[in-house]
């Protein structure tokens, strides 16, 4: 670096912006190699930088995540499946809650409708009430016998 003083260094960088760009373009591979080496040697710093970058731009991160998910549906499925296998107990609890609460997703499953299908909320609510009545009548008949 030509200067030790940070302010002067910045000034120099602004002045020689084109030169720097030219040098970067000429040494693209070397820069890439060096930055990869640095990242390998400093994983903690990389993690911290990434976290602060994500904190600063939550919207950008969300958009990036959504784009990645749309481009990698197979990977998304695999990650979800691995998570479910690794958190079996949690998953059991979630499914139990899903059933007892008669959530919209559970009712969609019961109706064998895809999540992408546009279903009127009134139909889901009607099905929920129907299931509630059926459960209640079943409970009653079990209590009698």
């Amino acid at each position: 670096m030509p200067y030790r003083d940070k302010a002067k260094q910045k000034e120099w960088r602004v002045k020689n912006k084109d030169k720097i760009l030219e040098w970067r373009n000429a040494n693209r591979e070397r820069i890439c190699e060096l930055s990869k080496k640095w990242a390998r040697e400093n994983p903690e710093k990389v993690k911290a930088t990434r976290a602060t970058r994500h904190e600063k731009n939550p919207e950008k991160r969300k958009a990036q995540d959504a784009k990645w998910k749309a481009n990698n549906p197979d990977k998304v499925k695999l990650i979800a499946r691995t998570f479910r296998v690794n958190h079996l107990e949690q998953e059991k609890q979630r499914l139990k809650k899903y059933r007892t609460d008669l959530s919209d997703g559970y009712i969609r499953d019961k109706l064998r409708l895809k999540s992408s299908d546009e279903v009127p909320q009134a139909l889901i609510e009607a099905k929920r009430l129907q299931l509630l009545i059926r459960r209640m009548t079943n409970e009653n008949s079990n209590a009698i016998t």
Partner: protein
Amino acid sequence: MKTVTQLRDELATVFDDLRSGEIKPKEAGELANVAGKMINSAKVQLEYYALRKETPDITFLK
């Protein structure tokens, strides 16, 4: 009972009546069964429109 909203309201009434004991479980069960048939027919219609890649135009669901 011509729309799903009316069906939902009717089912809500049946559920309340069942809880308060105003109707018998068997009777409520039968009503729920009929409601299930109506819901399933609406579902089939929805699937039909989805397969044809058309926007659903179902009077029952309006």
